């Protein structure tokens, strides 16, 4: 008789039976037992059954509670197809475009599995969104984990950060684990959430599964293969609303131009003196590494950043913004900025509620709730809404950016807009003319670490 026990994100195998264990099981001299990742629990059980080994598994410690469906989800055809594809293995990733209701797919699965479920989300906004959806459809106790709260419920919603830190604690408490925006999962740290979890049922959701670093090849081990995929072109018209992009160009004023030129010449000179061309993310990364040691490099980098800020925050943009707002008074509008500072300026000048990562949690929750309810019509944010969050009933987005946003972002944003009757949704972009040099695209992560 073997005894299987969950310990710190692993399964410990105790007992005297000599077995030729598969490769994923390792001998642990520290405790004189065998051990494997908790995620291998199902595979281990299969192996033991095949070899007719009797065992006693004390792996799960599931939260107590009831789970009752109070409102059924009505599904579209492709959502049914996705669920059928997933249900074969009860593992895998469903890829559908933003706005195609991936949350509903997950809710429908939860409604028939009826087991303790963990939902892993990248942001607090998404956490709040899942919370209200679950409350709407199920009667159960919901635990929130992240952003200050730390409760486990029959259904628990947790951020990737908290799940990483508490992976050992949550690893044996759920039978079903949902990874929202699953493309975050394969990163070096976050993948441990999946590896240290014993949950047999796993679902990944995303619109963009592929990763630049190629780590998407880890999906089969972590959550399962992509089991269903539907592209935007297959859905536009029938399920997704079309939208319109309008671009405004503004110029820097004389003072800004002068400042911009000053900073520009600093970093230009540095680049020329050192034969550096910033063309890719990698060049940029090298530059940042270098700036840690080299004072000149740091100065150049700071100058670049200053120039960038001028381009992004040009005062003429505020004027254009005013004009657009004037035209759309009373409509549902979301304004996006690159920097917190500009979001704040807009908020305090126009009395528009702001959401940035600096906003206190209580105000952020209140603001989102009131926006959803229609007590507020307008919102300004420094892009924290970018990922996954439903922007309910907004029909207009205004982006104040440098010299043009990534097409992909615009597409994504366009799709979350909900047009008013007989009108198409509109997307305005306000861009600064003649400042392209500072707008080499680099990853958001790097920007946050070094500039914000």
């Amino acid at each position, binding site marked *: 008789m073997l005894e299987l026990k969950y310990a*710190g994100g692993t399964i410990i195998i105790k007992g005297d039976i000599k077995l030729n264990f598969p490769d994923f099981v390792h001998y642990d001299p520290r405790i004189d037992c065998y*051990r494997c990742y908790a995620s291998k629990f199902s595979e281990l059980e299969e192996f033991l059954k095949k070899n007719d080994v009797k065992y006693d598994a004390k792996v799960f410690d599931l939260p107590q509670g009831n789970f009752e469906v109070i409102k059924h989800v009505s599904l579209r055809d492709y959502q049914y197809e996705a669920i059928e594809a997933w249900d074969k293995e009860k593992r895998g990733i469903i890829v559908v475009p933003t706005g195609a209701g991936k949350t509903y797919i997950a809710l429908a699965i939860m409604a028939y599995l009826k087991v303790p479920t963990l939902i892993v989300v990248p942001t607090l906004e998404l956490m709040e969104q899942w919370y209200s959806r679950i409350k709407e459809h199920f009667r159960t106790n919901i635990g929130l984990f992240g952003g200050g709260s730390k409760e486990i419920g029959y259904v628990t919603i947790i951020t990737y950060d908290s799940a990483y830190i508490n992976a050992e604690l949550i690893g044996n408490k759920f039978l079903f684990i949902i990874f929202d925006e699953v493309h975050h999962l394969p990163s070096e740290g976050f993948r441990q959430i999946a590896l240290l979890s014993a949950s047999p049922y796993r679902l990944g959701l995303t619109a963009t599964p592929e990763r630049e670093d190629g780590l998407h090849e880890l999906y089969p081990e972590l959550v399962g293969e992509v089991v269903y995929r539907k592209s935007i072109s297959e859905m536009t018209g029938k399920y997704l609303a079309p939208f319109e992009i309008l671009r405004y160009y503004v110029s820097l004023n004389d003072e800004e131009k002068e400042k911009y030129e000053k900073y520009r010449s600093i970093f230009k000179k540095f680049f020329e003196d050192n034969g550096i061309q910033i063309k890719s993310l990698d060049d940029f990364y090298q530059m940042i590494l270098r700036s840690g040691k080299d004072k000149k490099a740091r100065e150049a980098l700071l100058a670049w950043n200053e120039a960038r800020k001028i381009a992004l925050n040009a005062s003429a943009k505020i004027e254009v913004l005013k004009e657009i707002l004037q035209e759309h*008074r009373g409509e549902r509008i979301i304004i996006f900025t690159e920097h917190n500072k500009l979001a704040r300026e807009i908020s305090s000048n126009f009395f528009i509620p702001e959401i940035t990562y600096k906003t206190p949690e*209580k105000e952020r929750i209140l603001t989102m709730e009131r926006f959803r309810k229609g007590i507020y019509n307008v919102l300004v944010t420094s892009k924290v809404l970018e990922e996954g969050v439903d922007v309910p009933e907004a029909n207009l987005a205004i982006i104040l950016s440098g010299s043009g946003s990534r097409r992909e972002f615009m597409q994504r944003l366009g799709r979350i807009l909900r047009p008013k009757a007989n009108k198409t949704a509109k997307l305005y972009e306000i861009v600064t003319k003649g400042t392209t040099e500072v707008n080499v695209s680099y990853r958001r992560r790097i920007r946050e670490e070094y500039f914000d």
Partner: protein
Amino acid sequence: MLPSELLRVKIYNNEYIKPLFAEIKDENIFLADSLAKIYEESIGKTVKNLEERVRELELFAEEYGYDFKFFRGLKTLLDRRLLFEEDIDVIDSIRIRAEIFETANKLFGGFVLREEEKRKVISEVSKKLNLNQEQVEEIFKSIYEEEKKIKGFEKISGEELLKLYNLSLLQTLLFRCKKLFLDVKATGYEIRRLLWNVKKLGLLYIAEKSFNGITFTIDGPVSVIKQIERYGTRMAKIIPLILPFSYWKIFAYISSKLRAKKDKSKIYKFVMSKESEKLFPKYEKLELEYDSDLEESFAKRFVTVTGEWKLIREPEPIISGKTIFIPDFLLIKDDIKVYLEIIGFWTEDYLKRKIEKIKQLKDINLILAIDYSLGDIKIDDPNIVIIKYDKKISSFDIIKALRKFEK
């Protein structure tokens, strides 16, 4: 502990990694003192004001060739010592701000574009909430981090700040530690607390006898499957515990991207011993505390009963094979050493493990005092004497047992 991006290290011989510790010397102390002073003087003022003054000093420090990461490190540590006004004010401001946004929405469809619209909103809100208009405007801004008022600051001297920085830097290095070796000499009580913390943090250890005392090899459950960085932050947390030990040496495998191929990491070694302790804050030796009243009352009575046998509490741990055993007492007379372990009310599992452990001990004289209620326990070892007690341990019984070892 600092954010990883403020870590400063140097690589030696392509093999060793070492943090760039701040030397405890006059000019460094002067800089740290000046910075701490700015914080002290900021009580009652806004964060914005503090940030501006800190920025001025940072520029000055950079002029003098200080690394900005070093300066930011000191700043990070001082920021944590700030106290702000209570949360209750924040909740009030959130409520008042919500009122402002709602009013702007109701009156002007979502936003104010002209000055007179803005005034109208402020006057409506001030009437409704019974505040004057300046108050409303001030509260609107009070939520911003930089407008926050500083209520207090936990003072620190420049020298202490540098030492705290060094400790934090060392801990930050360990964030990316894959395996930690600690070679230590310490009392049973200190080791007990160390191991209790190691366990509580979800780490595992192996203890081995070493030339100086005991070597602990520390990593986590998954480490046997794959060496991962998961346990680094937890390892960092145990460092302050070993600093007061009478001897310590740290050896660690650290993964770093420095001088490594793109997107890859390299493993470096890190070594440091008690000789460097002047770099770090001084931690007081732990006060001994008794595990139970039972032990305390026994120790007090026993000392008065016998002069010949010396009673030592929480002696150095005993290592036997893979087992570490920390007995409650050591009794010494001339060159005879007898350990005393008291077993009271515990769970069955604990008792089983304890007995297993004791059975593994070799060539050690041991008296095992066992509570009556635990029933009969037999250990087949001439060097182990079992006595039973009821409610309190009789000194007489112990002396009787000790006679056996005197022969």
